[in-house]
């Protein structure tokens, strides 16, 4: 049997080999935690080695800083440029590298072999900053119109991203561009492939992040066609608690279930609620607090480490829900736990995540709340355990959901369907349900 590492290595070398052959580019689909950043850094290093000047395009300053830091570590001698906006203050992890030059002007960085910047910054750069190769990170979250603004800067591109996460969106509702191959609202990958169907598409086969309990579930629900496996084995990841509770309240039951199986559904009584359901917000906060109180320790292939606040995240669908959880945490005197919307949690990794189910307490499901990418982000950020918090009644809500979405000609059907993905995940979670009455 081939080990996970070998599988991943084989996929990477095939990708790197394709880079040498392609006329136009390569697309790499990367499921959660499959080593996307590692691939970006390796590809960048390989291209630099081959004497190419490259640009790296990421979507946020945070992501650019991460990649800059990792590339500088991986290639100690490489001259690296960090292209930035005028109000950018270099992060410590960028400033500590002697090989990294920070500038707002691409011309200042002309001598650097690799230059990294956000897509928005690159879009404001003139054509003389062009480079033969671009590596685009989080390409499924980049909108087609943004790619249009940077595409004149490179001849060939490696686009890397997670197709299971959220699609880019617009505040404008219009059917004006449906069916056009260059519909500006689709993702950068979609537009590229529709115009260049010969571009090879690879998929990374192994998730280093998701534990063995999570990978098959997430793979089946959100990546039905490509699929992936966990890099670690059945019992390699586990959570233990350094304290024992007096008695066993529902929070502890949920924690124990999550620690034991990697999943828990913390189910509150069925009720139609406001979007900022105070009880759900309180439960999310209380679970996070309880993980900290109980002194959770994560055991993994990396050894044992205490699960501190920075290793826990609470994910929500809406900003006001995140607000509500934050204020509940503030009241409990807890800081350091990441609380954010699915959109903001994309690309991030924690030991434990607590997910406020987007359909909790709702009377009707909307396309927004059913979107498979949202649920996928919320349930695939964890290395050890994911606790889903929801009011009872989601299966019934799904059952009653009308299927009346419009269908547009010449628009590729997107899989998985949000309804199916939700159904699949709820079916799985029903085995790990803890009723919080």
């Amino acid at each position, binding site marked *: 049997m081939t080990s996970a590492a070998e599988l991943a290595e084989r996929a990477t070398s095939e990708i790197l080999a394709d880079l040498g052959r392609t006329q136009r580019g390569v697309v790499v689909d990367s499921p959660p935690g499959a080593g996307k950043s590692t691939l970006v850094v390796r590809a960048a290093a390989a291209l630099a080695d081959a004497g190419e000047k490259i640009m790296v395009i990421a979507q946020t300053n945070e992501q650019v800083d991460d990649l800059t830091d990792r590339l500088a570590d991986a290639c100690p001698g490489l001259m690296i440029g960090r292209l930035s906006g005028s109000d950018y203050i270099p992060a410590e992890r960028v400033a500590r590298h002697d090989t990294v030059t920070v500038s707002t002007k691409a011309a200042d960085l002309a001598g650097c072999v690799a230059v990294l910047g956000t897509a928005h910054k690159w879009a404001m750069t003139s054509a003389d900053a062009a480079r033969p190769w671009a590596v685009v990170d989080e390409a499924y979250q980049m909108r087609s119109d943004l790619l249009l603004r940077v595409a004149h800067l490179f001849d060939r591109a490696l686009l890397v991203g997670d197709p299971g996460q959220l699609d880019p969106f617009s505040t404008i509702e219009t*059917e004006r561009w*449906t*069916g*056009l191959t260059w519909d500006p609202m689709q993702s950068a990958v979609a537009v590229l492939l529709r115009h260049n169907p010969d571009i090879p598409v690879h998929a990374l086969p192994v998730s280093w992040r998701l534990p063995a309990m999570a990978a098959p579930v997430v793979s089946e629900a959100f990546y039905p066609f490509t699929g992936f496996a966990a890099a670690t084995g059945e019992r390699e990841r586990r959570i233990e608690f350094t304290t024992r509770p007096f008695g066993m309240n529902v929070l502890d039951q949920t924690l124990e279930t999550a620690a034991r199986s990697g999943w828990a559904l913390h189910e509150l009584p069925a*009720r*139609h*609620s*406001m*979007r*900022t*359901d*105070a009880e759900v917000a309180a439960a999310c906060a209380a679970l996070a607090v309880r993980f900290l109180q109980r002194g959770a320790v994560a055991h993994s292939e990396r050894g044992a480490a205490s699960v501190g606040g920075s290793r826990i995240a609470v994910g929500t669908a809406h900003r006001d829900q995140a607000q509500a959880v934050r204020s509940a945490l503030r009241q409990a005197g807890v800081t350091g736990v990441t609380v954010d919307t699915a959109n903001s949690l994309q690309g991030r990794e924690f030991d434990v995540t607590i997910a406020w189910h987007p359909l909790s*307490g*709702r*009377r*009707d499901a*909307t396309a927004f709340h059913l979107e498979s990418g949202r649920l996928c982000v919320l349930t695939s950020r964890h290395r050890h355990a994911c606790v889903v918090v929801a009011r009872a009644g989601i299966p019934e809500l799904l*059952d*009653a*959901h*009308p*299927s*009346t*979405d*419009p*269908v*547009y*000609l*010449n628009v*590729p*059907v997107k*899989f998985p*369907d949000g*309804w*199916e993905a939700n159904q699949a995940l709820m079916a799985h979670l029903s085995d790990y349900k803890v009723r919080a009455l």
Partner: protein
Amino acid sequence: MKGTEARLARIRGRAVPRNHNARTIAALASNPGCARRAILDAAGVDKQRIAAFTGFPAPFGQSRFALARGNAFEAQLKAEGAAQLLALLREQLNLPIPKAHYDDLTEVGGNTSPELRHARTKSLLLGIARNTGDNGTMFDHPLLRLEVGGRYAYLEPDLIAFRVEGKFSVVEVKSFPVIDGQADGEKVAAAAIQSAVYVLALRDLLGDPGAVHHETILVCPENFSSRPVAAKLDVRKQLAVLCRQLSRLARIDDLLGLLPPGLTFDLDPDDAGVPRREPADLAGAIRTVGARYAPECLNTCEMCFFCRDEARDDTARLGKSTREELGGIEHIAAVLGFARGTGAPDPALAEAAVTLRAAARLRADVLGEAV
């Protein structure tokens, strides 16, 4: 199932059961949470009739101009052995030249009985599916059959199934236009789910899901002309939706269990067929089956005016997004009670109460008058 069938027959009463067709099967997905609709459909009740009888006739009608246009477009495509459709399939879907067979299944030797036509369709298509030779391309008006809630529904499709490379495809002819590559999303959605009904029925007939493409072909007039244009529709999602709804119909017993035992929607006709039942009495019987009204029903369900009237004091009639903003509170009076701070305290709704109170305060603050 026997007991269920008897129960449904009693609910329907003496009226002739309404048969399902592709349109009504497709409509199963439009409000699956509505028990009233599920019961009425399962029992084959004529919804239009009972809605009108209770004083809430459905707001649907069809213009003869639209009908005529639809019929003329279909006739034009199918004239002379579907010559125009064949040219289209060749041009846009690369149908090879030798594939030009045309079998008319509209009638069997002048007889149009559904059983006979279905038998003929079945023997012809099965014969062809089992035979590897290229001896069938277009099949005009095949008569298919699908089990819906324990009864067979005959599907009278205005379609031609065509077969190439050993696989059947479903062609759906619609008369709404495709203009510069775009068509009305809702109309395409309706066409897609209807095609999916045919795909399902055709798979059922052939006993082999792999024998029918999940891509169907939609043929519409192009731009402002009556020249046809074809588009492929991937109906995998619609197939999943349909299978789900059909399996729900099979579970109709769960719903029946909740209803009063003697329930019937019979109109109690006299010998001349004139109903003797009091409309108010029928309305009362209908109300014993819970509905899930939403304004979207106004586009899809014959009972919509009845249910809207029933929901006049509910937030449901204000639309889904309004109700969502009101925290899902069901009654208009309750919302206003909370907004004015006069509502009975209900811990389950405490949060909604706080929000509504705040909204009322802001509104009063700006308008200078209490809400």
